[in-house]
């Protein structure tokens, strides 16, 4: 009897698993945000947060965003990353100088012949805002940020009052 039941149940189990997989792939497919293995990846930017003895380091990947396009503010234990990434055309505008010279002269307009056909559009553009709550308050005066090769690193020193302190034991 058990053998029969297993044999009967297995194809149904497989079907159910298959439907589960299909459903998961449907509900987790965010067409506007690309595919991500985890839900948090849909928020932009994704951040990595590390803690050392006296500071927190927040790292985020912001490709194509210049220093002037990102705004970082710190208050207490919250860090806000705000900014925007320019549209796709702004980043690929360079070829027009070459083509305008050849075809339409110094009009500065895009030549009529150049039609842009998008083959792939996976990179998002537009505004973003991300608020990160740090475990303890940080010293906003001493927060330092660097943006190198599209990687933003924000070092937030902990407030002196929040830093771990070694308590000396006095002998009586």
């Amino acid at each position, binding site marked *: 009897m058990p053998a029969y039941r297993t044999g009967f149940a297995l194809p149904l189990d497989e079907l159910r698993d298959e439907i589960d997989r299909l459903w998961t792939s449907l509900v987790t497919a965010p067409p506007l945000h690309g595919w991500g293995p985890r839900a948090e990846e849909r928020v932009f930017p994704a951040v990595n947060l590390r803690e050392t003895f006296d500071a927190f380091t927040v790292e985020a990947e912001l*490709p194509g965003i210049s220093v002037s396009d990102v705004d970082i503010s710190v208050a207490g234990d919250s860090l806000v990353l705000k900014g925007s990434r320019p549209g796709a055309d702004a980043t690929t505008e360079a070829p027009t100088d070459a083509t305008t010279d050849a075809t339409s002269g110094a009009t500065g307009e895009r030549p009529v012949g150049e039609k842009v056909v998008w083959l792939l559009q996976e990179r998002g553009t537009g505004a*973003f805002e991300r608020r990160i709550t740090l475990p303890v308050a940080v010293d906003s005066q001493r927060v330092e940020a660097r943006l190198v090769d599209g990687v933003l690193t924000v070092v937030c020193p902990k407030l002196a009052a929040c830093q771990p302190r070694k308590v000396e034991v006095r002998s009586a």
Partner: protein
Amino acid sequence: MVTKTEPATSPSAAGGGLTYRPNVDASDRGTEVVLVADMPGASATTIDVTFEDGVLSLHGRVVPRPPSGRVIRQEYGIGDYRRSLRLGAGFDGTRIAADYRQGVLTIRVPRLAAVLPRKIEVRAG
């Protein structure tokens, strides 16, 4: 906005770490195809762009950033970038230009002059 997605779970042959598939915008502008790839954390010297048999391959080596401290939150991984894109025939592999700035790689692949449309002048005899 899109963060780095689709970790290609196969460890890269050389480094042993994960490789990631960069997000790419590709546009056909008639005389050339322009590809823009997000590859934050790489550098101009560690990116290889090759074009062979109509396939453009990107490989960006990312030097591991020395981890400091305890991980509290890890939302993305760090590793090399690798992607191949089939463009097909009719491109001039010798005139491909690649430029890397602010973590974004821009590649211009010009079409061969022979395949571009040309207006033929009719001469009066």
